[in-house]
C-alpha cells in the first residue's frame, strides 16, 4: 500500500509501523485518561449522592464517561496523527500532487469497527436497563403504572408503605400534598432522610417537569396524569428543585429549595403544617391522582359523576365508588 512514486524525504513507514505508533499513543493516553475520568472526575460528577438514585446516576455518568474516553481519544489521536504525518501544503499545485493509495476499504478494520460499536451499544443498553430496573426507574417519572417498583409499593394507596408525596405543578410554583397526613398541601418540600419516597407528579395547567436536582428525580408534570417517580433519600441537606419543562412566562422562577431532614424533624414539620393548615384542609379537593380544573374555578370530583346507566354494558367508572375524602385508587394498572 505504499504510495507509488511519492517523493520520500525519509524512509516511509510501513502500515504496520503506523498502526503500532497510533496504537501505542492511544493506549498510553487511555491508560492515563480513563483512571483520571473514573476515579478523579467520577466522584464529582452530578447529581451527587444525596439519594440512592442520584448515586447510581452519578455512577452511570462515570461509566459512560469512561467508555466515551477511548472513543474520543482514538478519533482525536488518529486525526491528529494523520494530519501531522500525511499533510501536504494546502496550496500545492494540482499537477504536483501524487494521488494517495487507492484504498477503498479494509475488511478487517470495517468488521472490527462494526463489531466494537455494536457490542458497545448493546452493552450500554443492557447496563442501563438493569440500572433502571434495580433503581425503580432510576429516579425518572415512570407513568401511572410503573413496572419497576420498590418493596412496599402498591397501586392501592391504603396498602402503599412508601411515603407518598404528591407534587402539583402549576403556573408558576410547586405545591406538595401528603395523603398519608390528611392530604395536607404545603408550599415547601421537606422529606425524611433514609426513606423510600414515591413522588406522584401532576399538574393543574400546562406541562411542567419536577426536577429535584441533587435527588436525581425528574418527572414531567402533566395535567390529568399521575406520573410516579421513586427515590430513596440518603443524606440530610437542601434539595434544589427546578422546573425542567418550559411552562410559560415564569418558568425560570419555578426554582425552590427543599430539605431532607432527620425523621423526627420531618415529624415535627408535618405536625406543624397540619396545625397551620387545619382550617384549609377541609376546603381542599379530595385527594386524587390528578385534578382537572373546571371553568367555574372548582375541581373535578369523580364522586359527583352521575352513576352510569345500569344496563349500559359499559364497565362502571373506576372512581364512582370512592367517596369524597377517601383516597381514590390509582388508575387500574395492567
Amino acid at each position, binding site marked *: 500500500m505504499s504510495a507509488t512514486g511519492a517523493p520520500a524525504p525519509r524512509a516511509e513507514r510501513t502500515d504496520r509501523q503506523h498502526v503500532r505508533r497510533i496504537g501505542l499513543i492511544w493506549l498510553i493516553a487511555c491508560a492515563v485518561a480513563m483512571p483520571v475520568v473514573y476515579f478523579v472526575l467520577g466522584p464529582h460528577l452530578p447529581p451527587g449522592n444525596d439519594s440512592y438514585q442520584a448515586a447510581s446516576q452519578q455512577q452511570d455518568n462515570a461509566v459512560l464517561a469512561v467508555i466515551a474516553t477511548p472513543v474520543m481519544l482514538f478519533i482525536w489521536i488518529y486525526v491528529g496523527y494523520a494530519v501531522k504525518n500525511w499533510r501536504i501544503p494546502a496550496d500545492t499545485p494540482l499537477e504536483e500532487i501524487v494521488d494517495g493509495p*487507492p484504498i477503498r*476499504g479494509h475488511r478487517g478494520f470495517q468488521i472490527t469497527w462494526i463489531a466494537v460499536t455494536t457490542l458497545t451499544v448493546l452493552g450500554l443498553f443492557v447496563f442501563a436497563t438493569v440500572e433502571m430496573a434495580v433503581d425503580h426507574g432510576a429516579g425518572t417519572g415512570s407513568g401511572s403504572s410503573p413496572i419497576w417498583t420498590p418493596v412496599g409499593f402498591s397501586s392501592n394507596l391504603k396498602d402503599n408503605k412508601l411515603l407518598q408525596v404528591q407534587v402539583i405543578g402549576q403556573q408558576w410554583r410547586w405545591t406538595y400534598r401528603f395523603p398519608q397526613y390528611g392530604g395536607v398541601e404545603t408550599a415547601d418540600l421537606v422529606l425524611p432522610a433514609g426513606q423510600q419516597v414515591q413522588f406522584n407528579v401532576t399538574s393543574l395547567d400546562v406541562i411542567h417537569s419536577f426536577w429535584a436536582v441533587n435527588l436525581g428525580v425528574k418527572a414531567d408534570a402533566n395535567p390529568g396524569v399521575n406520573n410516579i417517580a421513586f427515590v430513596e433519600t440518603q443524606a440530610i441537606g437542601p434539595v434544589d428543585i427546578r422546573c425542567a419543562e418550559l411552562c410559560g412566562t415564569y418558568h425560570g422562577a419555578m426554582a425552590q429549595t427543599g430539605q431532607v431532614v432527620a425523621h423526627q424533624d420531618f415529624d415535627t414539620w408535618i405536625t406543624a403544617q397540619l396545625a397551620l393548615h387545619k382550617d384549609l384542609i377541609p376546603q381542599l379537593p379530595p385527594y386524587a391522582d390528578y385534578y382537572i380544573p373546571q371553568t367555574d374555578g372548582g375541581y373535578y370530583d369523580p364522586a359527583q359523576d352521575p352513576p352510569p346507566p345500569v344496563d349500559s354494558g359499559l364497565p362502571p367508572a373506576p372512581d364512582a365508588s370512592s367517596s369524597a375524602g377517601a383516597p381514590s385508587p390509582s388508575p387500574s394498572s395492567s
Partner: protein
Amino acid sequence: MATDIAVAGPDTGGTSELPAGPGGPSWWRRPGLLTGVVGAVVGYAAGTYLGTWLGQDNQQVQGMGHNDFAVTLGYVIGTVGWLAGIGALAYPVQKMLGHQPAAQHEHERGVGRYFRYTLDHKVVGVQYLVAMISYFLVGGLFALAVRTELLSPTRHLFPPGQYLEIVGEHGTMMMMMMTSAILGPFGNYLVPLMIGSRRMAFPRLEALSFWLTPAAFLVLLSGLLIGGFPTGWTGYAPLSVEATQGQDAYLVAFGLMAASMIVGGFNIVVTVINYRAPGMTWTRLPLFTWSMLVTGMLMSLAAPVLLLGCYLSLMDRTVQTALFDVEHGGSPYLWENIFWFFGHPEVYILALPGFGIAAELLPVFTRKPAFGYRIVVAGMVGVGLLSFFVWQHHLFVSGINSDMRPVVMLTTEMISIPTGFIFLAAIGTLWRARIRLTVPMLFVLGGLFNFLIGGISGVFLSDVPTDAVAHGSFFVMSHFHYTIMGGYMFFFFAGLYYWLPKMTGRMLGKRLGQVHFWTLFVFFNSTFLPLFAIGELGMPRRVFEYADSLQVLNMWVSISAYLIGVSMLVFVYNFLKSTVIDDPITLAENPWGSRGLEWFTSTPPATENFARIPTVVSGPYEYGTAAGPMAVFTDEDLMQPEGVS
C-alpha cells in the same frame, strides 16, 4: 458565462404573453417581489377581515380576548396572496382552466431572475443560499440576545415574557428555517449537476419550496409584533393552546416550512431516482447526492406529520377542538408524540446533509477514493430508517408507558452504529492520504471534531439513568448545538467555501476564511463545552433566572457567544467582499482538482447545465486509480437518461 447553448427548454413552446425584456408588459404586470408583497398585503387584509367577521359573534373568541381566526386566516390567505403575486399560481391555475399556460421566464438572464419565481435550479440554489444565510444571521442575533440576558442570574434586561419570545424565535428560526440550509442551496444547485441532469424533476415545486421560506420567515418574525409565543420551538400543548396570537404565527410558519420541506424533499428524491445520466449507477452516485436522497425522503415522510400537528393545534386554538386539552378529553401527549415523530427525523434531516458534504469533500482533499463507499451509503440509509423509531426518547420522563423505554433506548443507541460509519469512512480515507488543509477541509475536520462530541453526549441522553439528569437541561441544549451548529453548520460552511467557486465563479478569501474557521472553532467550543457542565449542575433550559453559583460559567459562555458573533462578521465581510465588492478574478475551472461531475460544466454553469448529456464511465472518487475522467460526452444529444439501473 457560457451562453452558446442552443438547446430548447421544455417550456419554450406556446404563445408567450409575457416575454422578457423591455418589449414586455409594464413592470407591475410582471410577477415579482413587488406584486408578491402586494398580494401578501391584500391577502392578509382579506384574511383578517374574514376572520374578524367569522369570530365576531363567537362567545369563545370573545371570552379569550384574542381572535385567532383573524390572525390565522390573515397569515394563510396572505401567504396565498404572496404566492399568487410572485407568480407561483399562474401555471397551475391556467392549466386547471384549460388554457395553455404562458411560457415562464425559464431562461431569464440578469440579476432580476434572482428576485422572481425562476424555475432554473441554479437560481433557486442561489436564492436559497442567500436566504438561508440571512435567516441564520437573524437567528444568531436572537441567540446573542438570549446570552445577554443570561449574563446575570436574575432578570436584568428583558422581562421574562419577552425573554421567552426571544428564546422561541431563536429556536424556531434555527430549527425550522435552517432545515433546508444544505438541501436548499447545495442540494438544489448541485444534485442535477452531480447526476448529469439538465434540470430538476419538478422545477415549479422547487421554486415553490423556496418561495415558501420567506413567507414562513416573515410570518415567524411577525409573531413578535403580536406578542410572540411562549413555547419555545417545541410548541408543547397545552401551553400553546392558551398562548396569545403570537402562537398562531409559530404554527402557520412551521406549517409553511413543513410544506416547503415536503415539496423540496420530494423533488430531490424524484430527481435523483429518475434523472441520472447514463452510466450513473447507484454505486457511482456521489455520496453527497446519496445524503440528499435520504434527506429528501426523511423530509417528505416526516414533515407531513408536522403539518398535521400544526393544523391540529390551530384547530384547538381557533375552532376550539380539544385535541390537546385535558379538560375536555384531549391529551398533551398527542402533541408531544406528533411533534417528536417529526422532530427526531428532523434531527437527521439536519445531520445527514452534513455527513454528505464531509464524505464528498474528504476524498477531494485527501486525493484518495472514498473509504467504504457502500458502508457510508448503508449508514445514511440506516440512520434514515432508524430515525423514525427513536422519537420517544424525548419522552423518557414524560410519564407515558414506561415499558417502552428499554426499546426506545435500544433503537436510540443503535442509531449511533450507522452514524459511526461516517467516522469509519473518515478514518479510512485519511489513512496515508495527501491531506490538504484548505478552508473547506478545515471545516470538514472541525465539523467531525464537533460532531464527535455531539454524538457522544447524545449517548448520555439516550441512556435513561443519565438522561434523568440531563433531560431538559442545558446539557441537551449543548448536545444539539454540537451536532447542528458544530456539525451541520460547519459542514455547511465547508460546502460553501468549496462550491461557491462553482456557483458564482468567485472564491471566498482564503486568509479570511482561515480566520473565520479558527475563530468559529475556538469560540464555538468555548461557548458550548461549559454548557454541558452548566446543564449537569442543574440549570434547566429556557430560564431567565439561575443559581448564583453558575454566573461565572454563564458569563464565560456569553462572552464566547459574542465572539462567535464577531467570527460571523468576519464571514459576512469575506462573503460580501468576494461576491460583491471585489472585481471578479479569473478562476481555474476546477480549483480543487475534484473528479466530481459538477466540475464537468462551465463555471458558473449555463442554463441547461450540460451542452451534451454526459455519459458516466467511472465513479466520482477514483483518485489514484487508473480510471480516466468520470464522464465522457458523446456526440448524441441525449435528453432522456437511459440504461440506468
